């Protein structure tokens, strides 16, 4: 069976190959430092996995580690686990004798040997919306776990780079990372993404952050402050859970998508209904450490937890922190982020 690079149906990413149009063949996706080969006989499952993997569309130079991902259907009911390794909203991940096994309420499971290069997602034969959501979670587990096994720490943060500065933008989901990123792009900064990054110590001991996704998830109301994004309402929502639309950074801000940086600052974002514009305060080292740790998933595995903690704590030591409080209509003023830029540069 031939290998089909980066495409199953409409999904594709940047592994550099050509599309063969052979939907039955395994498909290859490059997701940061991984090359994931997906084998899924069922087209619905194959497209769902491809949809998740093709979001990681930033090209990374080789070498990349090869990972095989098999997606199969089987009516084997596995009891929901306890989440001893990781507990997520819809997925419990437990350590087994030889690796990891994730279980979900829909009956979807995902497993691999520790440090291994072959994952299996097993779904019930009756595929419904819950199963498809749980596949998203399983694909996220495959990637994040494999990245950690390579020494990278997945970071739920945005980043901007410019003038020798690289600022990590941190906030919980829906906390304003994307909009602040957009506001800084508008002022000339480049971005490594608004939501998902990989971090590790570089050879010099300084942290290194890399981009994974060159698209944004923008809420339609963003157009009120950023007319260049156009009418987002015309685009389909990408998830039943959010009004946000997925747009390519280069389509809106050509030349503003970056690929890597050496973090120098951490920006902790929060919304304030009772202020006008932006409020800025310096953060102490303890607050920087706390903010960074709260942006990463740390599994309950001593070796992995130590690796993640070590990477984040060392990075936090080198970062200057700024708390940014954002008033409701702050971005109506295109210059509102100028004081923040002055603190970053």
């Amino acid at each position: 069976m031939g290998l089909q690079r980066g495409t199953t149906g409409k999904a594709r990413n940047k592994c550099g190959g050509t599309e063969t149009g052979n939907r039955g063949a395994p498909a290859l996706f490059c997701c940061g430092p991984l090359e994931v080969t997906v084998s899924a006989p069922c087209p619905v499952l194959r497209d769902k996995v491809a949809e998740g993997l093709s979001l990681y569309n930033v090209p990374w130079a080789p070498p990349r580690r090869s990972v095989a991902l098999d997606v199969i259907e089987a009516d084997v009911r596995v009891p929901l686990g306890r989440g001893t390794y990781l507990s997520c909203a819809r997925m419990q991940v437990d350590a087994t004798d030889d690796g990891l096994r994730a279980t979900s309420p829909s009956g979807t499971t995902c497993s691999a040997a520790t440090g291994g290069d072959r994952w299996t997602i097993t779904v019930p034969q009756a595929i419904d919306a819950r199963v498809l959501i749980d596949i998203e979670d399983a694909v996220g587990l495959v990637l994040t776990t494999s990245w950690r096994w390579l020494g990278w720490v997945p970071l739920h943060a945005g980043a901007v780079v410019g003038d020798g500065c690289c600022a990590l933008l941190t906030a919980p989901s829906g906390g304003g990372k994307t909009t602040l990123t957009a506001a800084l792009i508008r002022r000339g900064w480049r971005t490594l993404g608004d939501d998902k990054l990989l971090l590790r110590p570089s050879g010099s001991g300084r942290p290194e952050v890399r981009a994974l996704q060159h698209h944004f998830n923008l809420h339609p109301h963003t157009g009120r402050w950023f007319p260049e994004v156009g009418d987002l309402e015309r685009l389909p929502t990408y998830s039943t859970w959010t009004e946000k639309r997925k747009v390519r950074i280069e389509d809106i801000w050509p030349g503003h998508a970056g690929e890597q940086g050496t973090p120098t600052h951490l920006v902790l974002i929060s919304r304030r209904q009772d202020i006008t514009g932006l409020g800025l305060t310096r953060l102490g080292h303890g607050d920087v450490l706390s903010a960074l740790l709260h942006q990463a998933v740390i599994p309950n595995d001593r070796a992995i937890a130590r690796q993640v903690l070590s990477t984040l704590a060392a990075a936090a030591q080198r970062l200057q922190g700024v708390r940014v409080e954002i008033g409701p209509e702050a971005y109506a003023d295109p210059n509102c982020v100028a004081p923040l830029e002055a603190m970053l540069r």
Partner: protein
Amino acid sequence: MSVTEQGTGTLALNAEVVVTVLENEAVLLDLQTKFFYSINASGWAIVQMLEHGARRADIHAQCRDWGAPPEAAGVVDQFLDRLAEDGLLVQGATPTGVASASLPCPWSVPVVEKHREPLQRIMVSAFDPSIPLAE
């Protein structure tokens, strides 16, 4: 009676605690409670002894070797009590090795700072550590 008041017992770092060492401090994360802590260099030197298990008397003696004055025994006990209160220490464990602790700088009062916000126990996904919203 607190863990540290039992002079002959062995104290050890809870197996659920992971530690990373930085230039002049260390960070402890309790995987069970998800609370994390910063400790200074003297605190880290003591915690190194606890990684393999140590008696309180041995800890006091080692601290004196590092330059702690005799009256510092009280602050060392307070430091150990603070760790024990949060479940970071267990008592009575058999030492698993010989502690090779070192203090690379002058002795100072050991300090532990507990960070207010623990990490999430349940999160949105394997990538997003935010609190899940109700479906």
